[in-house]
């Protein structure tokens, strides 16, 4: 019964990745990137790599999102292209 979860999560990962590079608002991109990391963390957990999932959740979805938001706060919120 693993494959449907796998497939749903994988679809969501790709969806988040495409959304993150196509959104013009950089703050939105930061949030989407956090969502991407979190879904990726679910994928690791499904595959049984709990340590990697934990790292992904704390570093990818936690701190790096904050760093991105901080960087957006100090630069500009809109992309040029």
């Amino acid at each position, binding site marked *: 019964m693993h494959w449907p979860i796998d497939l749903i999560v994988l679809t969501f990962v790709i969806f988040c990745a495409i959304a993150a590079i196509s959104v013009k608002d950089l703050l939105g991109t930061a949030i989407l990137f956090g969502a991407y990391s979190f879904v990726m963390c679910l994928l690791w957990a499904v595959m049984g790599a709990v340590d990697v*999932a934990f*790292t992904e959740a704390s*570093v990818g979805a936690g*701190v790096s999102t904050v*760093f991105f938001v901080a960087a957006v706060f*100090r630069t500009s919120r809109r992309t040029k*292209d």
Partner: protein
Amino acid sequence: MKFLGFIVVCLTGTLLLYGTGEFPDWGDPDSPASIHLSNYYIEKAVEETQVPNLVTAVLADYRGFDTMFETAVVFCAGLACFLLLRDFREKKERFYRHTPTRVILHVKDSKKVLKTGKEFEHMDKDWVPSDLIIRTVCRILIPFIQIYALYVVAHGDFSPGGGFQGGVIFGSSLILLAISYDLKTLVRRIKEKVLGIYAALGVLIYVGIGAICMAMGGNFLDYSKLVPIVPGDPHHIRALGMLGVEIGVGIAVTAAMVIIYINIVSEGKHDEGL
């Protein structure tokens, strides 16, 4: 140009997908990764190290040298952020609020520093500190996050987690303090010098444990040589060595995360920011 980029991305993607066809199946017992070292780790790690979590045993003991340089990389990231962004010039403009009358003062001369306290409170130019509910919730939440971070570091031998994750969680609790109050609160509580010393101290603990092992006549990071100087059950010596190393990693990562955050968000001024 955009079209060209799209074609390049598509080509690279196709090549990568083509490359994955050669990969062994997921969980394949005959894959090269599972036939050489994995068997040894799975059969012997618990017996040799008394650590139930194999991932921690591999990361902190069998491949301790690797993890040491990962810690050094995190330390270097903090150092690079400091060197690139830190700006020691004083900020000229400041805003204060006169607490009894709620009048906002705009001080343009940097030499005139008003004493903040009962009468005046400091205000950020671009970030208005958030309201009472957020402050209260974060104040209640932060100690629990920190306790959990310490638990993750201390319990890394038995459950998922370890120095990196625990350090990151501890660092984010401090960042949460800066976001829910203001940056000044965090900077006042943890001085910049202390953060730098902690980041270096974490790496030093790791390297120091390795060096002590060498001084006791073993290889670098061979924890089993620590038996004469560490009290307790000699069978658990490698687990204790790993714990010491993880504590070092945790301290270094915590300090590095906070250094990176403060430098990015205040443009290196350590004064005002998110």
